[in-house]
């Protein structure tokens, strides 16, 4: 019988898809609202943002054991962040559609408020999963929120070329600085997350995160920074450079969540603080299999 932590199999790619699509969608809604305040035409992003969130929730619906009872998910708003996520989505989705159809900035901002709550609820869902050390750390909250925002900004950069003048506006105003700040913020949140787990997670979890670190540092931090600075320096290539930077910002966020939700999600395992006395002997020390340091 396995005593060491085992990889959770119950939440598969569909659950990860909710965090990936929901995080990107809510991040996109928030960034669209922010950029619209900076003068960009951004209400068009509201519909794909809502569609992404809806896709994520649809994936979860496909995963639950009893989909026909799914409305029961709204029964515990007092304590469950999953209920709260669902409730906020009922506001976020129509607001996104309305903001798109009416091209209304106030509606977009209202949608962004709902999106911020949705993104926070997603972070707290993982945080409250006490059985998975890679999720329950406090540092998961800033990581999930910052990567959602960064992915949202990445999507804005990828599709900025669809609206005349948006790319130039991004690089002439504060848009590119906001993108840079988010990349740095997510990098800091990732380092903080790994630090929080350093002696506080199963060995297998730490190995997965160690392997992921290089990819995240290179593609999620270094690549977007270089591309954004190049975009600022070479106006003629701003469109492809912005799209490439956005691509890496999104890709890294999805990779990070995939790693955390599917690959690093080892259970707590079992542990004893004492072993029993046998015969006339004395009790012995305990054991925590699969952990780097005795806790």
């Amino acid at each position, binding site marked *: *019988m396995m*005593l060491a932590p*085992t990889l*959770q199999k*119950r*939440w598969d790619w569909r659950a990860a898809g909710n965090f990936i699509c929901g995080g990107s969608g809510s991040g996109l809604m928030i960034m669209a609202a922010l950029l619209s305040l900076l003068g960009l035409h951004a209400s068009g992003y509201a519909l794909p943002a809502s569609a992404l969130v809806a896709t994520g929730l649809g994936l*979860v619906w496909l*995963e*639950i*054991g*009893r*989909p026909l*009872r*799914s409305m*029961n*998910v*709204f*029964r*515990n708003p007092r*304590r*469950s*962040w*999953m*209920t709260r996520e*669902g409730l906020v989505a009922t506001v976020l989705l129509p607001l996104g559609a309305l903001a798109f159809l009416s091209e209304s900035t106030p509606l977009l901002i209202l949608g962004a408020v709902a999106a911020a709550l949705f993104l926070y609820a997603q972070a707290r*869902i993982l945080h*409250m*999963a*006490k*059985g*998975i050390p890679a*999720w329950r750390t406090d540092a998961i909250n800033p990581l999930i929120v910052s990567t959602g925002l960064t992915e949202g900004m990445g999507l804005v950069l990828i599709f900025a070329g669809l609206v005349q003048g948006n790319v130039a506006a991004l690089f002439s105003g504060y848009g590119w600085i906001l993108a840079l700040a988010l990349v740095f913020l997510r990098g800091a949140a990732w380092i903080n997350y790994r630090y929080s787990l350093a002696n506080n997670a199963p060995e297998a979890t730490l190995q997965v995160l160690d392997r992921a670190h290089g990819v995240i540092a290179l593609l999620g931090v270094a690549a977007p920074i270089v591309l954004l600075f190049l975009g600022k320096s070479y106006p003629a290539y701003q469109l492809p450079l912005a799209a490439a930077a956005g691509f890496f910002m999104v890709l890294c966020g999805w990779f990070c969540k995939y790693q955390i939700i599917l690959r690093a*999600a080892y*259970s*707590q*395992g*079992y*542990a*004893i*603080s*004492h*072993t*029993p*006395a*046998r015969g006339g002997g004395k*009790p*012995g*020390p*305990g*054991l925590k*299999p699969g952990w780097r340091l005795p*806790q």
Partner: protein
Amino acid sequence: MTRYVMVADINRCVGCQTCTAACKHTNATAPGVQWRKVLDFEVGSYPNVRRAFIPVGCNHCLDAPCAEVCPTQATYKRPDGIIAIDYDRCIGCAYCIQACPYQARNRVDIPNKAYGKAFGQMKHEQKVPHSERRAVAQKCTFCVERIDYGTANGLIPGIDPDATPACANSCIADALTFGDIEDPDSNVSKLLRTHEYFQMHAELETGSGFYYLWERK
């Protein structure tokens, strides 16, 4: 107030898995699902090796993380401290499975067959399909039907076998003891007063209702 807990004396447990078998027999859990099981720990290396047999299952926690996260309130705490599941309300989201640090919960989507697909369901499997448990969360109930029957008929859980979980009834070494920790005169309260004990993953502050005795005071 009443709070039912389980006490396991790890000096007594011999790892015979009789409790595991009794639980399966009583609750007709699906193949591969064990609401009560006994872990076999081996500590150290030759020649200084120690072994410990540790019964595990749902800890019926005071601050149960599973009940906290459940979006449907299908998982709830009864007034007697037992964490129960309303199978008809559960949507099978498996959030409680992720929240439980004791790996005590399961979800079985396809009715299992003890001897595989080729042989179909055994007669006993057909008689107790427990379709209400399919695709929803399930775990140890502390044999709640027996406790409810016992308390309704003036029996004392943990003392009278008809009001006591099957695992505690069946233990050949008297290692498992069930009772009300809020009653200072109960069997479990006496054991906890006279022994050193630990709770698994106490650092997670779940208020576990499963106590392991490791030394007499």
